[in-house]
């Protein structure tokens, strides 16, 4: 017998957690290491306890199940547990191992856990590239950016973002005099944002157009964007072209 499967239960409804607890106690080789009643707790539990399996509800306060996945390391097997069947395709998209529709019988959970074991013994779970770029578009316009900082989660509304700066495989998102580091490339972030408000003014800079105070010409062919808080960002030649289109000049 291999080591016990370490399971985290994530559901905001106590009866839903209780039935998973009860079913899991009947299973051999399973250990419940965390019970989370919201998405924040789930992100923390994954960061601190590194479970093998996440039994994950979709509709929860603050962070829904898909947003939790966006924020965690992807070497955890995910089994969705929900009353809604309309997320099944999206669940497949994010590489979920199984999708349980409430209510379900214990055998269905057993089957899901067998699939998890099969996936785990076949080797590491395929770590997909950061999900947000693929996940976001079908979910309607993005209204906020989620950033994980250790076991904490920051929710930054788009309107509060000043600009984003590329840093290798990360972007540094500047909002309200703070900088948040998000594990995402500039191109991925740009693809999820509304192009009417965010413009790539430079290979390394994405600007919230509402923050622009003026454009200064420093010397021939070289321009600088000056933000309302006097931050100065370089503008590339093609960046200036995009900016001009957006400003209608």
């Amino acid at each position, binding site marked *: 017998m291999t080591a016990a499967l370490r399971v985290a239960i994530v559901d905001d409804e106590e*009866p839903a957690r209780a*039935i998973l607890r*009860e079913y899991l106690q009947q299973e051999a080789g399973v250990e419940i290491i965390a019970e989370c009643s919201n998405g*924040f707790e789930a992100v923390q539990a994954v960061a601190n306890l590194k479970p093998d399996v996440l039994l994950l509800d979709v509709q929860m*306060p*603050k962070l829904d199940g898909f947003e939790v996945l966006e924020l965690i390391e992807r070497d955890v097997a995910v089994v969705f547990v929900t*009353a809604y069947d309309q997320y099944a395709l999206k669940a497949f998209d994010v590489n979920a191992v199984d999708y349980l529709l409430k209510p379900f019988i214990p055998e269905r959970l057993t089957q899901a856990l067998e699939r998890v074991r099969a996936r785990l013994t076949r080797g590491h779970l395929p770590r997909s590239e950061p999900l947000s770029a693929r996940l976001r578009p079908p979910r309607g316009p993005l209204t906020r950016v989620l950033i994980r900082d250790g076991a904490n989660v920051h929710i930054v509304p788009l309107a509060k973002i000043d600009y984003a700066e590329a840093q290798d495989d990360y972007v540094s998102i500047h909002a309200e005099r703070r900088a948040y580091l998000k594990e995402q490339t500039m191109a991925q972030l740009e693809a999820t944002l509304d192009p009417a408000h965010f413009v790539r003014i430079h290979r390394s800079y994405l600007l919230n157009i509402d923050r622009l105070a003026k454009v200064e010409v420093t010397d021939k062919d070289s321009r600088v964007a000056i933000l309302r808080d006097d931050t100065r960002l370089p503008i590339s030649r093609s960046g200036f072209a995009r900016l001009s289109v957006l400003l209608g000049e």
Partner: protein
Amino acid sequence: MHPIMASRDRLGLYLAVWIPAAMLVAIEFATVSGLPWLAAAAMAGPLALAYAFVCLAAWYPCRATPLQTSGISRLIGTHGAAAVLSSGLWIVLASVWARLLAALGFSTAFDHFGDQVPVLFVTGVLLFALSVFAYYLLISYEAARQSETRSLELDVLAREAQLMALRAQVNPHFLFNSLHSIASLIGSNQAGARRMCVLLADFLRDSVRFGGRDQITLGQELSLVRQYLGIEQIRFGARLAVHEELAPDIQDALVPPLLLQPLVENAVKHGIAGLIEGGTVTVRAQGTGADLMLTVENPYDVDRAAAAGTRLGLLNVKKRLDTQFGPLASVRVADGGGRYTAEIRLPLTSAGGAR
């Protein structure tokens, strides 16, 4: 807008209808005044065309004196006067035209135009009467078509509302989640599981029973709401609190069924369910003058405000009140500072009769 002048096609069709009239007038000239056929045609064609336009005016007295509401003497007076006037005008036009043709040396027979006047006058009056008849036919046809469209529209709306109400009763996810809670309780709390089965059965039975009626008492609607909230409280536990503020004697007021329940369901689904700590759903009912005022208030997560966009239940309630009470009822929502309030106003009547 004049119905015939409204489009080129209609005007064309109308003028085509006048071709037999032109032929009739030509025959009259040929027989009464003994004009040669060519001269009779030269006389009748332009005259008929002119009179076609004169008779367009018959529409206005027709519109001003509707058949249903105007007395017979007024009808005869109005249209008789209009007919005599129009025919008289026509005679004047005809004599001018006859003189013009005579001056051009077209035919000497125009000297006898005087013989033609009585016949022409009677023809003019008859043609005008025919126009009046046609306009009344057109008006009643349009009215019938309009009322048919309106009753069809009302029908569709009512059926849509009924369907929505039915769908709201058995929101499948509510049912799935409730069944899941029951399955869970069976393991840990069998008495609780039984209680929830009964609550769910009561709620479903009552919503089907009440949903089929035109009106129920507010007390019945409130008991439905309590059953619903009782089920949701098992799911959400301490996160869902309920507060009622009901004016005394208000329970006998009559309301369309399933008016409050969808609003309370929204309050739970879009409000409480999105809050980690949960909150209180407040239900208020009071009479204000001739109105019954119902409000449902709930807190919601401000960060998730965008999700509040699709409140189908509210739209359905609005439509149903609109079809039933028109401007006497209203649905208003207030949304700010993390609190959402839906307020319904409708005429206050009670089971004992109108107050």
